[in-house]
């Protein structure tokens, strides 16, 4: 006899048990996920304060004025890079302080903070000399950067030789004078008022030497004027440079800028007053804006200083001093003149690099 089976959804006990077990396992996974998620979140929070830091042997401070930020950023980055190799922490003093300290104040703080070394670029004045000497007496090694504090007991000076710099500019001026067939070109050198007399003299001598050495230059010596710009006043450079352009009667033929800010102000003023080509600008350093202007021939050429070398040489000098008790008192930094073609190449390289990133 054939039996009939009652229809209906049939779930065997095994299946129900399996479903229960699966449910439980899912819940366990959910719980596990939560645990992991929470611990990750907690870790994220604690990372802010419980990070393990690397410990260094030495603590150097890098003091530079706030003008020419890009230039100093590069130098500082090179110093930090070199410092990592030597197990030295390089602090950019003043950067994270709320008060805008002068370089002298920063020097004082560095002194009182008993750091191991100071890399200093600031005004060469009595106060600075005093503070540097104080630091040296406390056993802190001091390196002056770009601008030498001549009367101080600093251990080393890392920078460009003013005469060499003058020669570089001299060559450019000579080239320009020949190209444009200028007779006794009027040259205006833009320097800040902290620049020592001797430095100014070295630059002007070098330019003159260039002319006198060149055969064509004979009897065609340039008229040189050094325009000092008050470095302590924050916006004086831009104003002073515009003043030069405003005085259209006495507009110089060639303007030599001795720092990157002056370079930028000058070419901006030349553009604004429609003096491009009329006034030849010789720049200093190579920011993207400056390179762009060189490429467009608003600036005739610019003198590039090797910031990488500058930064690393400071650290090397300090470390050498700490290790052996002495170091060479002057480390020269090489310079390079960048013309239009070179600027184009550099910009293209930078573009490729940006695209690569």
């Amino acid at each position, binding site marked *: 006899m054939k039996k009939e089976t*009652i229809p209906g959804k049939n779930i065997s006990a095994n299946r129900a048990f399996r479903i229960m077990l699966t449910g439980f396992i899912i819940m366990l996974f959910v*719980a596990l996920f939560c645990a992991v998620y929470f611990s990750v979140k*907690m870790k994220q*929070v604690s990372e802010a304060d419980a990070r393990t830091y690397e410990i260094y042997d030495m603590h150097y401070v890098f003091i530079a004025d706030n003008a020419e930020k890009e230039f100093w950023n590069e130098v500082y980055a090179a110093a930090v890079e070199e410092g990592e190799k030597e197990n030295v922490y390089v602090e950019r003093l003043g950067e994270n302080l709320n*008060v805008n300290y002068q370089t002298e104040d920063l020097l004082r703080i560095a002194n009182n903070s008993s750091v191991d070394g100071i890399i200093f670029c600031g005004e060469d004045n009595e106060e600075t000399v005093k503070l540097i000497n104080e630091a040296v007496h406390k056993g802190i090694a001091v390196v002056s950067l770009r601008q030498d504090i001549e009367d101080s007991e600093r251990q080393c000076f890392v920078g460009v030789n003013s005469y060499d710099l003058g020669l570089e500019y001299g060559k450019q001026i000579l080239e320009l004078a020949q190209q444009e067939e200028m007779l006794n070109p009027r040259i205006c050198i833009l320097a800040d008022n902290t620049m020592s007399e001797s430095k100014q003299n070295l630059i002007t001598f070098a330019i003159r030497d260039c002319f006198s050495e060149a055969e064509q230059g004979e009897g065609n010596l340039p008229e040189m004027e050094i325009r000092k710009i008050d470095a302590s006043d924050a916006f004086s450079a831009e104003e002073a440079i515009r003043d030069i352009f405003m005085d259209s009667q006495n507009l110089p033929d060639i303007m030599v800028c001795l720092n990157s800010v002056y370079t930028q102000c000058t070419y901006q003023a030349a553009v604004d007053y429609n003096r491009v080509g009329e006034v030849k600008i010789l720049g200093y350093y190579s920011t993207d804006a400056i390179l762009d202007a060189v490429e467009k021939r608003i600036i005739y050429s610019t003198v590039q200083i090797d910031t990488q070398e500058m930064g690393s040489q400071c650290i090397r000098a300090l470390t050498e001093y700490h290790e052996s008790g002495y170091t060479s008192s002057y480390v020269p930094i090489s310079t390079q003149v960048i013309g239009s073609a070179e600027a184009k190449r550099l910009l293209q390289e930078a573009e490729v690099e940006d695209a690569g990133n």
Partner: protein
Amino acid sequence: MLVTKWNNASIQIKLTVSFTFTLIIILVMNLFMYVNINSMTSRVDEVYVSNVNLNELSEALQVLHESVRGYLDTKSSDSLDSYYRADQEYRELLEGLNQRVVNNRMKITEKNIKAQSETYLETIYETVQAKRGRNVERYKTYYDEATEIYGDIQNCIYSLNNEQFKNNSGSYMILLSSLRYMEIISTVILAMIGCINLVMVFMLTRNMTSPLIKLSKAANEVAEGNFNVEIEDTESGDEIGIVSRAFQKMVTSIQIYIQEIKNSMERESRMKEKELLMESSMREAQLMTLQAQINPHFLFNTLNAGAQLAMMEGADKTTEFIENMADFFRYNIKKMNQDTTVGEEVQLVDNYIYILNVRFTGEIHFEKEIDEKVLEVKVPSMILQPIVENAVNYGIRNIGREGKIKLTVYRKDKFIYLSVWDNGIGMSEEKISQILKGELKEVDLKSNSNGIGLGNVIERLKLYTGREDVMEIKSAGKDEGSEFTVKVPAHI
């Protein structure tokens, strides 16, 4: 193992285990979240601790500087005392600051603060010493120097405080967003677990109730009369499993009983049918008897009156003849619708032969060989006389020689054999089979026949015994005579 245990557990245990299970999971999850959220909120509380510490440091420095200033102003022992205390407190606070060179701006600032503070403490110590020594110029210089350093330190602390505040705010934001995330996630997880729980409970209860539903369906089917149901999957060891199996057993048993009842009913109805058939044959025979004869009661009474008359006249042979006649007809009236014995049947044959011998003046030589033991065996009435009548009418009548009839009654195994043999004209095999199949129509009923044919006898015997082999007819051929043997079971 676990599955078997689970299957065999009772519903109560199953329910308790699953609810406890889900409850524990929800409780644990809640506890887990509570602990996490709690630790997070306590972290939120701690976020700005570093700012508080820096503020304390700044305040302590201020107190120290003011106390020095107070001492320089008044040179009182109170102010000196407060200077010492402030100096101590500040030194203690300085202990908490970092003094290693590490690559973290804030930590380095801490180091700078600490170093500057040490220079400052030295300077104010010198200041106080100079004041004690009343060296006015020196203490003024020292004090100016200290004030300068004080300003630097305060600036550094302020800057660090700012930086840390920014940093802590970042942490605070992360914490806040984490808390918010956690809130969402907690809700989602709780909802998920709730859903999973719900599904689990649903599955579990369905698992429990589905056999019940099947059972009720099966019960309904049974109630509607369909016993051919089978409940699937009753291996579960809980109460429902037990009930299901019991129900299955019950249904199977009911089916068996029903089958038995059906069989016995079938048997009964078959028997009833047989009885009915028997009755109808009987009635047919009776009808035939009635058709064939004039009122037997009247004849019987008349014959009795004749016998008495003959007796009174002293005619003994006539009396015997009439009595035999009367007996023959009485038997016909009485026994037609009831069973009789072999003895009575034999008696009837005797009466019949006597009557015929009177009629035909002793033409028939009748012999009988009777087993006395079987005389009381019950047999249907009117089975022997029609056979004998047949033997007389078709067998020995009109043969030139002497007609003989022999009746033999004997028992063999469980059967009684009633055999009527004659030495008449015999019959062909074809005819024998026609008679046995009841195909031969007895049209030639003569007035001297009592009307009951062989066919009727065979039919009644078949119905009575429930067997087919009730009669055997043998004949060696023409003029070789024939033998009719009736076979009835001895126990009936």
